[in-house]
């Protein structure tokens, strides 16, 4: 068991297996808001489903509508269990902040240090609560 701690962008808790996304991803135009799958055929994780996963996201890119796609995933109850970022992304965080304001629920979003981010390997089980990430 490994315990890590990150900077809390949006408070929440969630448990799931890690889906590691190293290649830059745009939620808008890259993730289907109806299925939570990565739809960009040029993306190495094409067709992976984000629902219930602890998504370790190295880099966001592109659209400023990514917040809307994340809000829709939360509203439709097909959101990731938690999102762990390597860099703060205000656009994505906003989707989770609006979800909280609208009463749709809390999605944990943390910014991890580079060293800790490297420990987030594909398929490992992770429990996220507040600023803490516990890897089994």
């Amino acid at each position: 068991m490994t315990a890590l701690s990150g900077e809390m962008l949006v408070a929440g808790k969630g448990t799931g297996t890690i889906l590691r996304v190293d290649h830059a991803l745009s939620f808008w135009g890259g993730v289907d808001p109806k299925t939570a799958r990565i739809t960009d055929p040029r993306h190495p994780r094409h067709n992976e489903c984000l629902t219930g996963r602890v998504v370790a996201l190295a880099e966001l890119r592109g659209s400023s509508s990514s917040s809307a796609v994340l809000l829709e995933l939360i509203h439709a109850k097909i959101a990731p269990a938690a999102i762990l970022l390597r860099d703060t992304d205000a656009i994505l965080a906003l989707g989770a902040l609006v979800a909280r304001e609208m009463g749709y629920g809390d999605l944990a979003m943390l910014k991890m240090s580079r060293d800790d981010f490297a420990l987030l390997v594909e398929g490992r089980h992770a429990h996220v609560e507040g600023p803490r990430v516990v890897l089994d």
Partner: protein
Amino acid sequence: MDLSPDERRIAEGAEGPAKAMSMRLVAETGRLLGAPRLLTVASAHVDGCLYHGDSGTHFAERLAADRGRVAVPTTLNVGALDMLHPDRVKGDAHHREMAGRMMRAYEQLGCRPTWTCAPYQAGHRPALGTDVAWGESNAVAFCNSVLGARTNRYGDFLDIACALVGRAPDYGLHRKENRRATVIVDTSGLSPALRDADVFYPVLGTWLGAVIGSEIAAITGLPPGQNEDRLKALGAAAASAGAVGLFHVVGSTPEAPTLAAATQGGTARTIRLTPEMIRAARDRLSTASEGAIDCIALGSPHFSEGEMSELRRLAAGRRFRMPVYVCTRRDLVEKSDLSDLEDAGAVIVADTCVVVTPILPDTGGTLMTNSGKFAHYGPANLGYDVVYGSLADCVETAVEGRLLRAEALWR
């Protein structure tokens, strides 16, 4: 994060629940970005009015029901309906209803119904150095780079929240010191003919977005006084391939009369572009290189008057053998006579565009475009293969009914 007494009062509900929620969103975003305070903005451009799902409609309707009203002049980006040509959009009844409700809610909030991703060509042009809150990645890149007004990349919902309270977090590109170029992109190793061709600019943008991302580049070696449509195409491609919010083109953009001005006298590393790098970026924009072309998609960002004239000049009265979708601003449609282009087979789309809204036949196929942004998002959003080419390539392909692409420039 220090809120002023007035801002705190608003966040606690003194001016109603819509402003309170907006202030909390603006302040909370400021906190997570490490902004010390909020600043006053002069205008806003809202991208949140495009329907992605019911949650966005509920959010806008909540603000409208709570009697929210924008505090600064605010334009609207595209919606998911073409209200000038209601039959164009193929979405089901639920999509049409929710998209329409969302668009009406944003109008109720006092936003101008411009419905364009090129608000800067529809009269919304904040002055050099003005702080504004804009959303939509191409509009942000243009606002910062070409107008020299100052905005961060405001995501959906934060854009309207900033508009309602007239404030934005004081961080990032609002600060002069953060607008400095830290990387010089030298294009002088490319042929002069390529550097002076419209088709080069989306490719340069694609390279910039993919390689430079959110760093700020000063591009050198381009002919000075580049026209706005080329800079718009460059920025749109850059902002879809990467998180580009600001770039400088030395001799063309207002914060870069000289290289030293662009770097604010600081140090910057240099990347020399080679023809191979640019060819690779061009090739990334296409997912097909041969076979039948089913349609042409133009106008991302929305076509300007100048681009419409160029299309007319290249078509030269000939008929298209496939649909040529031309996405543009409603104010341009309302004040121009486009009947000659429509007679030739152009399908004019206003208020929205073919990559964000189901307009193309859902059979799949291959589309050709001169837009780096369409090329970027077409495959994932539409399930179409894409061939990237110049506007002239697109017109010749449409007229001849088979793929024609001029290769000489790229060799």
